[in-house]
């Protein structure tokens, strides 16, 4: 994974760089906003770690110019601001996720993995996480190389979770996305499908967490 870290604090930057290199990622570091903007115009990255308070050019400005060039590179904002909110993510600013400093490095790496997968996982033919693989083309899932028999609706559900990892999916959203010729499934039918999928993927790092009253979260436990 090629990562660009834009961070003006040298100590923090060194720590992050060292951690990412240890994990086998290629990471570039820029501490000036203008330099970062320049390099982003000439080089491609799989992920950008972006500080907001930067010399030269603010992180938000860099983000805007990246999005203005139609680059869909995932961006994770690292912010020291405590009142940061949902506006950072989504259309308004265009970041994919954010972490407030100080952060746990494991948390940072996990978030990065999720973001990277969201892009590369779809681009590549096979999704891998620990002993779990899923082939997007053949729609085949396997645990420890052993193929898991999945029904059509279960595949649809799995695909939905894999593209929206770590995000809350409400039953309504799921019902909206999963449909067949019979029309949209009942909420009860979704619950049943969910239970079967959980059972079949037991033993893989893939988890589905239920929050009553809110919905479901799909998560890859790779720690």
């Amino acid at each position, binding site marked *: 994974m090629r990562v660009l870290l834009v961070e003006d604090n040298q100590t923090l930057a060194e720590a992050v760089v060292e951690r990412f290199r240890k994990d086998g990622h290629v990471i570039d570091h820029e501490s000036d906003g203008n330099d970062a903007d320049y390099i982003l115009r000439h080089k491609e990255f799989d992920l950008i770690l972006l500080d907001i308070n930067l010399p030269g050019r603010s992180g938000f400005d860099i983000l805007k110019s990246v999005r203005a060039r139609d680059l869909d590179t995932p961006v994770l904002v690292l912010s020291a601001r*405590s*009142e940061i*909110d*949902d506006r950072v993510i989504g259309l308004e600013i265009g970041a994919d996720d954010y972490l*407030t400093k*100080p952060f746990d490095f494991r*948390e940072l790496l996990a978030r990065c993995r999720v973001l990277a997968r969201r892009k590369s996982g779809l681009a590549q033919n096979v999704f891998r996480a620990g002993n779990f693989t899923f082939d997007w083309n053949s729609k085949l899932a396997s645990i420890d190389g052993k193929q898991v028999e999945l029904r059509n609706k279960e595949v649809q559900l799995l695909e939905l979770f894999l593209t929206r990892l*770590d*995000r*809350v999916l409400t039953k309504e959203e799921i019902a909206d996305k999963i449909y067949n010729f019979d029309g949209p499934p009942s909420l009860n039918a979704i619950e049943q499908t969910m239970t079967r999928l959980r059972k079949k993927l037991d033993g893989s790092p893939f*988890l589905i*967490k239920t*929050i*009553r*009253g*809110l919905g479901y*979260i799909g*998560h890859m*436990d790779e*720690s």
Partner: protein
Amino acid sequence: MGGVFLAILTVFSIALWGYAQQAANRSYDRLLHGAGLAVLERVNIISNEITVDIPYSSFEILSLAPDDRIFYRIFTQDGRTITSSHDLRSASNYKPSERPVYWDDAYSGEPVRFMQQARLLTGDDQSLWVITQIGQTCIARHEMIADLFWRGFAVALFITILGLLFVWIGINRVLHPLIDIEKNLRHRDISDFTPLAISPPREVASLIRSINSFISRLQDNLDHSQAFIADVTHQIRTALSSLQGHLELAARETDESQFRNRLDRAALQSKQTIHLTNQLLAHAMVIHRADQKIKDAFHLAQVVKSTLETILREHLKSDIEFSLFIDPALESGKPDADLIVGDSISVREAIRNIIDNAIKHGPANNQIVISLKAKGRQLVLTVEDAGPGIPANERASVLERFYTTARNGEGSGLGLSIVQEVAKSHGARLRLSQSSLGGAEVALHFRRRISNV
């Protein structure tokens, strides 16, 4: 301003003119009445002949209007003239009465005020009304009207000018202490909280009282901040020296496993210090934003959901069972059913702290139920857990800063204090009680922004 003044002057002038006219008529009508009475007194029946001996005094009375001409006619009720200066027309629809009637008319080329009154004359075999009619030109009346009007006008103008003068003096008198206040405040040292000691005129006394009250609140606030800073300093320095201690011990450690142990403890201490710092900053932020008096309307249910989602992402691997219950009346009711007014970022911080508290103080398999219900004009947000709860005798204390029931040093002692601040700035009620799940129940009662229930 000038237009209003002119309009008032016009209205006043019309009223004054009306008054002057009334007064002049009243005065000169009395003359007519008096003259008429004097004439009627001298009406007699002498050998069956009605006769009148007009007294000199009656016309003398009328000559009090020195330049006015007079016309008179004395006649019986059947219209027979006894004597007259002119052949005058009687008042229309006249019913003889001792009460005088007055009317205006034009006669002999001038406006004339007429008066007519009667006297019942009782003779031997009959009684009849004798009527006297006197007309007087209006020169004296008009002079009096003009005189009253212009005098009244002059007085009004004088009083207006005097009034404006007083207003001007008053404003100066009132402004003078304001200038003193301005000087005082401008030259005041920022640490000087003595109240303004200017003996005030009544008009600015309340202003000075307000300023003094503000100064005293400012002092309270500063005292409060100083106490807070002292507390914070103590907390952070304690945490940092503890961290430093662990790191120093680790640096001198030669034993590999002991070294690991020391480092882990340093890491834990570091984590706690980070948490403490975050909480301090959150607390400061909440207070700062409360001072800004942010008054946006926002959907509470949405904030609850997104806050919960953020927290969930940090606890994906835990065994804590979260559930959310949102009143269907809010979920599928009117779009503004869950609207409250305030600062969504602070409210988010409060919710986060309540839930964090529940997580922190509860067991690994904790059950946390978050519910949002509509209760009339209130929205009640409740967070319940299956943890140990807060003992009833500590419920008041946990709201204080740096008070925590956690003994392992994990709690910053700021969580509920933050919630408390947010509740205060939103006019919400914070209630701590026992949950049916066995642990604590924290409830926030927000006021709804309701257009109509």
